[in-house]
């Protein structure tokens, strides 16, 4: 099990130090894949490099299976080459002066294993990543996907205690990325490797991870399973960053039995209160476009449903679904609907939203979003 405790990492550039990771803490159980997700510059790569030992943190503790590899309090810093962590870099860092075999054999050679043993282990791992046909190939003559698999093989061959992946799929084209993501997941699950994965791509994070930590401005904002992160964001930033969402500003009127009623531009909305929501607090409601159901006639209202009436002001046909822009009062709500819905622009339409899908998020949680502007412009943010 990997545990990172109260990790701070700063860059000592001239002037004020850049606070790259601040009070980062999480645990990764053995055999699980843990993802650090966030926009560029959020400190996720710094955190990963601190775990690798390539960056020296300012303070904190990093422990793996009971072995401290970094502790500011005890003055421990194990050099990266003594940590036995496998790592796949964003650029893959394939050594151009070695061929496929030599690249993979390197970690074993520096550990002074026998020739025979090296050969067996290298072939085994190359077979696992389906590169065993290209053993003698110059490493520079590999395609992007092959390079990625080679980098992975090199990280795996030393049977690492921990596997670190730094945006390993970001240099591949879309189709290949999907396939490699699938491969990566299969290998990780089969070998049950404890893995830390860094990405800015929410789809990768959602598809691969056992658990995700969403990071912003050097801090971990929320840790949870992919489903929890997506369905119950605790923070405006998380709701906004992971997936598309409608954000509707409002004020909490009543709060009872795991539901709250939010007075908003859509009227009174029954919603699921996130942690920290209290009566009369300013909140934003996050509702995913795919959870906004559209009906041409007035729908049957269930016990826990919110229904309101609007006008279709825009439609985009996207193949497997359609984006509808529905204007309610001053607000534009984005809804994803099946392409069979053909309501023309200008026609009235009904919106139906389950209360459990409407998550009320306290606005003050996020230091940079003051409540005033949200309430003032009172429009719904349409993301991406």
């Amino acid at each position: 099990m990997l545990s990172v405790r109260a990790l701070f990492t700063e860059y000592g550039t001239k002037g004020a130090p850049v606070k790259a990771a601040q009070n980062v803490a999480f645990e990764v159980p053995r055999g699980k894949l843990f993802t650090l997700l966030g926009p560029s510059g959020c400190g996720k790569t710094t955190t990963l490099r601190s775990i690798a030992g390539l960056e020296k943190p300012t303070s904190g503790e990093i422990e793996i299976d009971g072995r401290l590899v970094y502790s500011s309090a005890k003055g421990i810093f194990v050099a990266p080459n003594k940590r036995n962590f496998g790592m796949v870099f964003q650029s893959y860092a394939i050594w151009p002066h070695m061929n496929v075999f030599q690249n993979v054999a390197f970690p074993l050679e520096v550990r002074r294993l026998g020739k025979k043993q090296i050969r067996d282990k290298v072939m085994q791992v190359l077979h696992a990543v389906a590169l065993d046909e290209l053993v003698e190939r110059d490493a520079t003559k590999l395609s992007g996907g092959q390079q990625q698999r080679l980098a992975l093989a090199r990280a795996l061959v030393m049977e690492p205690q921990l596997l670190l992946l730094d945006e390993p799929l970001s240099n591949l084209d879309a189709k290949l990325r999907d396939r490699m993501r699938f491969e990566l997941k299969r290998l990780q699950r089969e070998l049950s490797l404890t893995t830390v994965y860094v990405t800015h791509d929410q789809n990768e994070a959602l598809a691969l991870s056992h658990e995700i930590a969403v990071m912003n401005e050097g801090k971990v904002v929320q840790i949870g399973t992919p489903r929890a992160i997506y369905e119950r964001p605790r923070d405006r930033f998380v709701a906004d960053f992971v997936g598309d969402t409608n954000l509707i500003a409002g004020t909490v009127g009543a709060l009872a039995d795991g539901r709250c009623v939010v007075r908003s531009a859509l009227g009174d909305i029954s919603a699921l209160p996130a942690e920290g929501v209290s009566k009369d607090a300013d909140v934003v409601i996050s509702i995913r476009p795919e959870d906004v159901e559209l009906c041409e006639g007035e729908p049957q209202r269930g016990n826990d449903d919110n229904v309101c009436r609007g006008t279709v002001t825009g439609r985009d046909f996207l193949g497997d679904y359609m984006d509808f822009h529905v204007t309610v009062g001053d607000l534009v709500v984005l809804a994803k609907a099946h392409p069979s819905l053909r309501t023309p622009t200008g026609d009235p339409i009904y919106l139906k939203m389950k209360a459990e899908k409407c998550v009320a998020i306290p606005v003050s949680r996020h230091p940079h979003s003051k409540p005033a502007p949200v309430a003032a412009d009172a429009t719904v943010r349409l993301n991406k």
Partner: protein
Amino acid sequence: MSDVLVMAPRPAFAPRLELKTVVIGLCVALVAWLALVPLVFLLWQSFLTPQTASVASRYTLENYWAAYFRSETAELFLNSVEFASGSALLALILGTGLAWMNERTNTPCKALFFALAIIPLVIPGVLFTVSWIMLASPKIGLINLALQKLLHRDTVFLDIYSMAGMIWVDGLHYSPMAFLLMTAAFRSMDPSLEEQAAMSGASMLQTARRITLKLAWPAAVGSLLILFVRAIESFEVPALLGLPVGIHVYTSSIYQAIHQYPSEVGLASAYAVTLLLLTSIGIYAQSRLSQQGSRYATVTGKGFRPRTIDLGRWRYLTAAIFIVYFIVIVLLPFLVLVWSSLQRFYSAPSWQALRRVSLDSYRAVLDYPQFGQTVWNSMVLAVSTAAAIMLLSAVISWIVVRTKLRGRWLLDNIASLPLVFPGLVLGLAIMVCYLTVDIGIYGTLWIMFIAYVTRFLPYGMRYNSSAMLQIHKELEESAAMSGASWSMTFRRVILPLLKPGLLAGFIYVMIVSIRELASSILLYSPGTEVVSIMIWELWQNGQYVELSALGVMLIIALFCLVLLAQLLGRRFGIAEA
């Protein structure tokens, strides 16, 4: 997890002296010793009176008094500046024009231009100067003789022994360097800036004048400063052309002060400090300029070649200019050396002389008693200097480029400091240093080795740093993550990846070491002569034909080395691409 592979962690607090730390420490100490210590001794010596058997030296300001307030002082300073700026301007004008023709126009036979880059490498300054004496001296100059014969007059048409002659030879010799500097500037320019001017309706000349040259302006000023520094440092031309007719500049005055009896090391040091100040100002201004110039940074990184301008019929003129230039800078000097090497006594070409052609002079040179020893000395020095420099600068540039060590900028600056040392000044400083600190290397090859390593360390740094910058940091980090120690990473990953740069740099340093004259001339003793010193001595003895034979052989040898370097560079260039 396999128990074979999981390494037991070191006890975390065990004090350890890592190899990395030791190597870094050694390099810093070595570089500081090489670059700083001679400088200190030079300064110290400049405040001392000459030491004789009866009188011990004492501290004095007389040297500076002599260096600054004698009647000749103003003349010396003005001569130096006139010579240096004249040469730099001539070189820059030639270089810029040629670079523009080569990079921006459709002048025919452009491929030949690239041969230019190697001229200053394969024809050492001393040979270039000597060949121009043979061409344009008032008495024996072939051009004078030919013109006099043609016009039936006795007038001296060209006199190489003059300020104009000095500027001509030195400017010509540095023009290929200006060509390379300006070519780089033109290449890094975004061609769309010029194409935009063409689209806006500007003619070819308007574009060249108002856009191309304006954009190249910072590069031109920077190149001018570099050329100025080079010219004010140059020793061969002022010594061979200026001294005989009493035109003194700083370098030749330093040489004279040492070679008169009793030698005035203090005065020479005072001159050297002054010269050092001038070159430092030049280099400093140049580096400031190149920092500021980043707002002109026009590197786009896009791989397309700029559109060349169609010169129409004018391209025959530019081709002619180019061919004339090629004749003047390569063909004439080389041919005159070949001609004189085939004679028994130096004489102008004629049918009579043609019948006397023989290879005697080559035989004489090869039979020269110290010839074998001299060539051996040159080879040993060249190879060992190149090896030492490339290894040392590989580690230093790794420290500078890769580590976050405090004070690494200082290390970088100290390693580049020898750039401001004129060869003669460095020779003087090292001479003073090891005469004072007697560790038994004065008068051996070691002292020349130290001089060469110091003088050419900046070149090694340049080759290695640029190669190091191209190696992605993650290539090293992934070696560390694979469990490799620092020395293992350096040996197995960094050095192999540096190999193309290392090889090219190695051969380059070898070549400049073989040509080195200005430092060697103050440091050699009987038995430690090198080839360039032998040429110098042959000139002093008036053995022109033997000198020519040796010169021709040296040029051919250097040419082969350059070819080898380019071949290697190309092969590894492709393999790494």
